[in-house]
């Protein structure tokens, strides 16, 4: 692994141990299921066995008669006592409550919640609840769901279409008319998700004396406390979310609004601490778990020399029976809709459609990875059509490094990049000529082997510009994040962050940045998570944003501390600040090193000696910094152009796959990824997330699917059928780093939280298709399972 160390940094970019690892390796993390509140009660959920049905009666008496059972909550009571949860788009009739009321809309939907002294007792009681259903018509196929006459998931909404708009950016029809070639293709991204090993959990306790709901939860959700308070009809300051809970993985999915409203309601109603720790089955069938499920229809217009002129994308996304933020996952890709390519004009038609399946939630990349898969499939199709080398075609169309900032047709300006260099590094890391030789040797020996290439963007610095774009009633234009820094009387530094973490190493991030700016050893800096009542604004670690946003906020706060120290020193040394220099916490007069005030002296003045403080400076040493997303703040134009995210990381994947010609089993033989996320603050963390993202991508490409039977039952609701790749499916992975700093960020960093996942599925799909090409077979649907691959091979061999 080549690390190009960024220049001029003391701690940033260096190999350093993380702050979090020691507690995790010794089993001393503190996850929500580890929190034991005195007298805590446990929830189990009764869920719908039908894809669609009317609930005719619910009888709870037998359940309530069991000893140890505290309560059974059903939809009628909960719906009366709470506000509905609304989708992220303007569809006020598509309402959702944590429990179904009157009708169920997917198999696995929560119908009743049992509260008991133990989880096992709650499950015993759940079995005793009798529910009469009258099955109704349902729709599972999103293409049928958009047709008139389809059964309606939400009849009050009048249609299954939750959102649909055709954006046209630039002279699409003219470009198509002028192009020498056109082609169309359809690809399908299967319903999968990031599926953390920790399920979702929440514990809540109501304090009637303080009128305060305390919440501990396994969350990664923007504006979570506000949404809970609103739904529970409480003022915002009556909900206190404890962000110091370690989250056992999320990668987007740990949203937990419905869980928290349910448990918060029960805790308040019963006056007892209550918790719901989903079991794996609850998690898979009815938790916030399923990801995008998309059919893409692409058309590309291009010339014989490989120049791609224009692009049309229709994306039909099956969001399931309800929608939180999921329709917006069609919105984020607007900000990178042409990928890394110079494409002059684009038509984009996102369609968000409801079916009788588990609701979709946010998944790593927020819709970008499926879009990247579709785009890259299109590029490969052009290469095949022209008989042109896939790499050369990409290189020809790449935005060149001298073209940045580069404005794409949909209104977003890319910050920086060197796509040619990163692809070259990936090819070198994979030893591409050797890879080609290995593939060709395998083919000669009668085996099936293929090479996959993908070159994809990772928009980062998560803004929520897709909210006003997809919902004109929503004028959110800031997605700030914050940091508070405190230097105590002993001189120790504490950084306060304002959200929970789910493995991204934020404590290490903040400590590294504070150490860098203040020139103090990060190992001596403590980082804590505020609770929501003493937190500064945060929009949670989504959208590959924390290195940029939390890193930027921490740097901003540290700079304020540094400025205060300089001001104190200037006052006491009777110099102008410009005459001073700061070094490792001490301030000296330039050229006169004996005129120095040390860290301890400066801190003591700030904390004890008001008489030595410069006029106008607050005593004590603390500073907060709230940072707006760079380039953010704008509303979309009438034709839907918007600056989406500020920074654009880039990754190029090169993979060699072998397919058993008889069984159809794929095996990844070699994997390399070139990656540029600007300045890496913690290389080990960036690499770790990238490796993990690639593994997620391997899962999405080859193994993982939430599969439904024809009668709407989720067939892969356990880990026996939802197949997460193990260390035996994920090969050794190589990353080649490249650094193109972002001009928009404090240190030149970009985001990397979605790295790997955004390009791996595209590359693996490309490799599988390259391997199948000699047979004349191809697959345009993920996941590409052995069964799928074999079926395609059979069809091709039979001459179809």
């Amino acid at each position, binding site marked *: 692994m080549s690390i190009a160390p960024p220049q001029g940094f003391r701690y940033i970019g260096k190999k350093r*141990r*993380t702050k*979090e*690892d*020691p507690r*995790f*390796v*010794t*089993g*001393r*993390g503190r*996850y929500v*299921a*580890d929190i*034991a509140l005195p007298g805590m009660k446990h929830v189990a959920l009764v869920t719908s066995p039908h894809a669609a049905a009317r609930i005719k009666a619910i009888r709870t008496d037998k359940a309530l008669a*069991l*000893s*140890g059972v505290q309560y059974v909550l059903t939809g009628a009571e909960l719906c009366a006592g709470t506000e509905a949860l609304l989708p992220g788009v303007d569809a006020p009739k598509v309402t959702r409550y944590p429990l179904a009321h009157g009708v169920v809309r997917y198999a696995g939907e929560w119908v009743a919640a049992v509260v008991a002294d133990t989880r*096992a*007792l709650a499950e*015993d*009681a759940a079995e005793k609840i009798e529910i009469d259903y009258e099955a109704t018509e349902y729709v599972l196929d999103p293409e049928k769901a958009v047709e008139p006459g389809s059964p309606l998931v939400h009849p009050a909404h009048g249609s299954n279409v939750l959102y649909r708009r055709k954006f046209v950016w630039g002279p699409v029809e003219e470009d198509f008319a002028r192009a020498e070639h056109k082609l169309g293709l359809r690809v399908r991204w299967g319903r999968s998700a*990031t*599926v*953390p*090993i*920790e*399920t979702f959990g929440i514990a809540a306790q109501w304090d009637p004396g303080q009128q305060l709901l305390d919440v501990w939860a396994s969350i990664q959700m923007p504006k979570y406390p506000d949404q809970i308070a609103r739904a529970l009809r409480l003022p915002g300051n009556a909900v206190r979310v404890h962000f110091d809970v*370690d989250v*056992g*993985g*999320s*990668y987007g999915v740990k949203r937990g609004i419905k869980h928290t409203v349910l448990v918060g309601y029960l805790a308040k109603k019963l006056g007892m601490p209550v918790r719901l720790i989903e*079991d*794996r089955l609850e998690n898979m069938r009815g938790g916030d778990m399923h990801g995008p499920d998309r059919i893409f229809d692409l058309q590309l217009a291009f010339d014989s020399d490989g120049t791609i002129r224009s692009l049309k994308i229709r994306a039909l996304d099956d969001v399931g029976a309800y929608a939180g933020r999921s329709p917006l996952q069609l919105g984020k890709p607007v900000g990178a809709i042409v990928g890394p390519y110079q494409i002059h004009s684009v038509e984009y038609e996102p369609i968000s459609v409801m079916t009788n399946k588990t609701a979709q939630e946010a998944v790593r990349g927020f819709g970008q990875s499926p879009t990247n898969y579709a785009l890259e499939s299109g590029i490969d199709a052009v290469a095949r059509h022209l008989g042109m080398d896939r790499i050369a075609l990409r290189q020809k169309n790449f935005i060149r490094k001298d073209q940045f900032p580069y404005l794409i047709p949909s209104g977003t300006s890319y910050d920086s990049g060197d796509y040619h260099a990163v692809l070259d590094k990936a090819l070198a890391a994979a030893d591409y000529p050797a890879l080609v030789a290995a593939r060709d040797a395998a083919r000669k020996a009668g085996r099936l082997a293929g090479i996959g290439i993908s070159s994809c963007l990772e928009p980062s610095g998560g803004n929520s510009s897709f909210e006003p774009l997809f919902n004109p009633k929503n004028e959110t234009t800031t997605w700030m994040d914050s940091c508070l820094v405190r230097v105590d009387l002993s001189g120790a530094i504490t950084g306060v962050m304002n959200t929970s973490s*789910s*493995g*991204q*190493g934020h404590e290490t991030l903040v400590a590294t940045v504070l150490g860098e700016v203040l020139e103090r050893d990060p190992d001596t800096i403590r980082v804590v998570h505020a609770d929501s009542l003493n937190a500064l604004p945060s929009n949670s670690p989504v959208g590959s944003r924390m290195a940029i946003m939390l890193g930027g906020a921490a740097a901003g706060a540290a700079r304020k501390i540094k400025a205060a120290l300089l001001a104190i020193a200037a006052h006491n040394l009777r110099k102008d600040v410009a005459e001073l220099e700061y070094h490792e916490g001490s301030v000296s007069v330039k050229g006169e090193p004996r005129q120095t005030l040390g860290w301890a002296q400066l801190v003591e003045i700030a904390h004890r000696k008001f008489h030595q403080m410069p006029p106008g400076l607050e005593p004590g040493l603390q500073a907060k910094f709230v940072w707006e997303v760079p380039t953010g703040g704008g509303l979309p134009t009438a034709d839907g152009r918007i600056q989406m995210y500020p920074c654009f990381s880039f990754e190029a994947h090169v993979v060699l796959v072998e397919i058993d010609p008889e069984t159809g089993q794929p095996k990844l033989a070699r994997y390399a990824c070139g990656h540029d996320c600007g300045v890496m603050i913690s290389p*080990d*963390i960036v*690499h*770790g*997330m*990238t*490796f*993990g*993202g*690639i*593994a997620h991508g391997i899962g999405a490409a080859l193994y993982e699917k939430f599969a439904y039977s024809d009668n709407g039952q989720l067939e892969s609701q*356990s*880990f*026996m059928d939802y197949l*997460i790749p*193990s*260390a*035996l499916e*994920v090969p*050794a*992975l190589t990353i080649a780093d490249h650094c193109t700093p972002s001009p928009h960020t404090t240190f030149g960093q970009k985001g990397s939280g979605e790295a790997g996942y955004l390009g791996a599925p595209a590359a693996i799909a490309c490799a599988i298709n390259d391997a199948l090409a000699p047979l004349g077979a191809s697959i345009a649907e993920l996941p590409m399972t052995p069964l799928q691959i074999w079926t395609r091979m059979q069809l091709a061999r039979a001459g179809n």
Partner: protein
Amino acid sequence: MSDDRVYPVSIEVNGTLREAQVPARLTLVDFLRDTLRLTGTHAGCEHGICGACSVLLDGEPVRSCIMYAVQADGRKVTTIEGLAQPDGRPGALQDAFCEAHATQCGYCTPGMVIAAHALLETNPAPAEQEIREAIGGNLCRCTGYQQIVDAIKLAAGKNTGNAA
């Protein structure tokens, strides 16, 4: 049906004899976590696939979610907490996990460390494929396994006096 008879169990956990009265249906993972409050062992799937709940039973790695506490009566269990140094700081293998940054969210980590520990006890210098087989029953969603494999190689190198 909710009439849970209890049974006495006596299990040596991390070197200390622990006695309790438990319902037969209490799994070993729930016993460790809820009865003994040893929360380092994690429940991931509760049906024996993900490996997050791995512990050592008489020195051998097993899945504590598909074993009842009553079945462990009279036996020795070592959990992730038992692999740390007496003062709670990371033991040698745990330290290698820190050095290689083999953890992100930390949820699968205790099971991974247990699986790796068991491997190195019987095979101090494993090949990469042997490492992957030893952790093949432990799912991780964060790391892509790369830095975990690196950590185990690092620990093995220290075991055998060879640099990894």
